[in-house]
């Protein structure tokens, strides 16, 4: 048998159905997970192209390829796509669905049909958002935050885009309650809370944030639509409303949403690092606890987005203090990862390289977050390129790189074939270098006072902007190499069998690719997720 006709097997074929309908109407968590993966990653690539356009515009002062209004629309669509269509649904939708039910030893999630509905709602919402770009009076130009009063007045297609995001919110809520119920009710025999994988723990914390925060976004978006269509004036100062109330409501959701984005990424890293260090994770309980602590504390810090919006000084102080508290559980995670590496037998393969660069990039992003969390320094860098650099370090350098790590770590398991190692490492190196050139210069530019969300800038910022744009190209080249290598490898590469990396979690104990039923017999768990010695026996 040659490599190319190695049968894929497992859930790809054991139901006997393989047409499009067997995928888009499947309630199998693995198929739904892959549907999410293709959809979210597709939107990620759209967002990347828009981001490259933004950087291209900033290559030289003045107009390079687009004017002010086009620039506004492009950065809005870039933000909306990346946040609502990729990064929020991406990790829970794709890897949460693929891996979590297997990791807890279940046959599927608690509500498989609801899970399918979530995907359809997500696709429906995404389609509405896309429609808003090409109909009406042009794509929204408010920024992804939809701030009033501009969002209530601009003639662009804000209402439709907001409605699409509202629908996607439903999808997030349903995924969240599905995951919580799954983790509570469907753990296999012997799968105690202390034996859950850290990825599952992080999804559990994420799911709570999805449930508790998303409804606030929903009502905020409804109010925006009412403001535009009915003229309620609830945020219109001319009629007694207060735009600051909008910002509060928006960030009550949107700051916790940051943790929806980063927590599953941290969980994936916590699963990958012990495997490639051949060593049990250090401080299991503290990592699990810190996921919950981040979710809880992170829900109380939204005001730090509004230090210069005209809140009272007392509120600024309280929010600043609470923001610093979030740094503690985040640092607990970083220290535990590093301690796991200590004296480990480290094997630098592609998933591990991405995971290690996650630690570095997330730490840089997190530490610069403290500069923004401190009220005094925030006033200086608020609404500058520094902010853009900061959250790209956390969101892209953090969640994005963790997503890539997860792709290299888990996808061969589900495709039954693997990518080639060398191009993966080259792609990683290019992306890591390009990333830092691109975003670190942004931070420097912000410190020097270059504001964000302008298509033009003063001549003194020209050199650094050019450097930053070149960085974006290096990053893009790395991304293309990674993608080609992954697609070629997963479709036609070497067979991937067994447990080559020696993972001790349940997904490595079942056939590759997993059968639709996951486990031939319901598993009985006898050891922890990172207990590598128990596995050898």
């Amino acid at each position, binding site marked *: 048998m040659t490599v190319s006709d190695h049968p894929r097997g497992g859930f790809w074929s054991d139901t006997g159905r393989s047409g499009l309908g067997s995928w888009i109407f499947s309630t199998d968590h693995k198929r739904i997970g892959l549907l999410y993966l293709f959809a979210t990653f597709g939107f990620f690539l759209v967002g990347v192209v828009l981001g490259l356009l933004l950087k291209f515009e900033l290559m030289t002062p003045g107009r390079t390829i687009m004017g002010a209004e086009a620039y506004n629309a492009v950065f809005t669509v870039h933000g909306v796509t990346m946040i609502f269509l990729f990064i929020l649904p991406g990790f829970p939708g794709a890897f949460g669905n693929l891996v979590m039910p297997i990791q807890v030893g279940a046959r599927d999630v608690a509500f498989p049909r609801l899970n399918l509905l979530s995907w359809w709602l997500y696709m429906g919402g995404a389609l509405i958002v896309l429609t808003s770009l090409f109909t009406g009076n042009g794509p929204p130009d408010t920024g992804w935050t939809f701030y009033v009063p501009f969002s209530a007045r601009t003639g662009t297609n804000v209402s439709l885009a907001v409605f699409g995001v509202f629908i996607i919110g439903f999808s997030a809520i349903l995924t969240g309650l599905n995951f919580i119920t799954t983790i509570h009710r469907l753990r296999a025999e012997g799968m105690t809370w202390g034996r859950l994988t850290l990825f599952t723990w992080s999804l559990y914390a994420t799911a709570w944030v999805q449930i508790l925060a998303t409804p606030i976004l929903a009502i905020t978006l409804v109010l925006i639509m009412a403001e535009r269509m009915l003229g309620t004036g609830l945020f219109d100062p001319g009629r*007694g409303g207060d735009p600051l109330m909008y910002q509060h409501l928006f960030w009550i959701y949107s700051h916790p949403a940051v943790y929806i984005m980063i927590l599953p990424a941290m969980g994936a890293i916590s699963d990958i690092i012990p495997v490639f260090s051949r060593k049990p994770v250090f401080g299991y309980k503290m990592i699990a606890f810190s996921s919950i602590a981040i979710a809880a504390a992170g829900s109380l810090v939204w005001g730090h987005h509004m230090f210069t919006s005209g809140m009272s000084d007392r509120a600024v102080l309280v929010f600043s203090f609470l923001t610093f508290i979030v740094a503690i559980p985040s640092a607990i995670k970083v220290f535990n990862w590093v301690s796991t590496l200590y004296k480990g037998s480290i094997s630098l393969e592609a998933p591990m390289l991405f995971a290690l660069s996650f630690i570095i990039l997330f730490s840089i992003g997190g530490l610069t977050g403290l500069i923004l969390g401190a009220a005094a320094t925030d006033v200086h860098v608020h609404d500058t390129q520094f902010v853009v650099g900061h959250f790209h370090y956390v969101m892209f350098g953090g969640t994005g790189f963790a997503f890539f790590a997860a792709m290299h770590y888990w996808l061969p398991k589900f495709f039954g074939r693997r990518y080639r190692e060398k191009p993966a490492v080259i792609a990683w190196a290019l992306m890591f270098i390009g990333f830092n050139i691109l975003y670190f210069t942004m931070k420097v530019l912000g410190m020097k006072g270059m504001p964000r969300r302008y298509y033009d800038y003063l001549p003194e910022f020209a050199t650094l902007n050019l450097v930053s744009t070149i960085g974006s190209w290096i990053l893009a080249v790395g991304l293309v190499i990674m993608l080609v290598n992954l697609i070629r490898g997963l479709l036609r590469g070497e067979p991937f069998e067994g447990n080559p990396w020696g993972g001790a979690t349940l997904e490595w104990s079942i056939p590759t690719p997993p059968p639709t039923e996951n486990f031939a017999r319901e598993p009985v768990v006898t050891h922890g997720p990172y207990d590598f010695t128990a596995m050898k026996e």
Partner: protein
Amino acid sequence: MTHPVHKDDFGAKLGMWLFLFTELLLFGGLFLLYAAYLHRYPREFAAAGKELDWMLGTANTVILLTSSLCAAMSVTAVQRGDNRRALGLLGGTILCAAGFLAIKYVEWGAKFGHGIYPGSERLRGGAPGESVFFSLYFMTTGIHGLHVLIGGGLLAWIATRVRAGRVAAGNHVLLENGALYWHLVDLVWIFIFPLYYLVL
């Protein structure tokens, strides 16, 4: 490969309770705005609140409480194996929902007749707090009304399942979840009623 259908009533109810949390938070956003704006415009809120008809509000409260009672009793009836009685009680709940919406229609209609609706000339010309009060009133009762409509529809669908015998003693988690949802709709009103009709 056929597996026995996975059935977990406790899990189904857990999922429903989680969903109810999200509904509470959805209305929580509106109550938050109410609190903040009441703090800013206490006088205007008091004046505007007097224009709401507390008689109609009370009538609707009684109607909703009755409907919740019917829903709870229909669950008990199914548990005792009396599907006919459960069906009748569900009918009562749905009738109450319709009555609630009818009264709401009358209330809203009267307000519209007086030129009070979001973005109306009268509210644009009036005190700033008044416009905020009525916008919040219409948004909150409007979204609540939508929930009454959805809840009523849900219970009507469940009633057809009870009638077909698909929901029966020992297999009634669907009805329980429907009733839970209905209690939430009721509960939210229990907060709206005093805040808008009584305390101002």
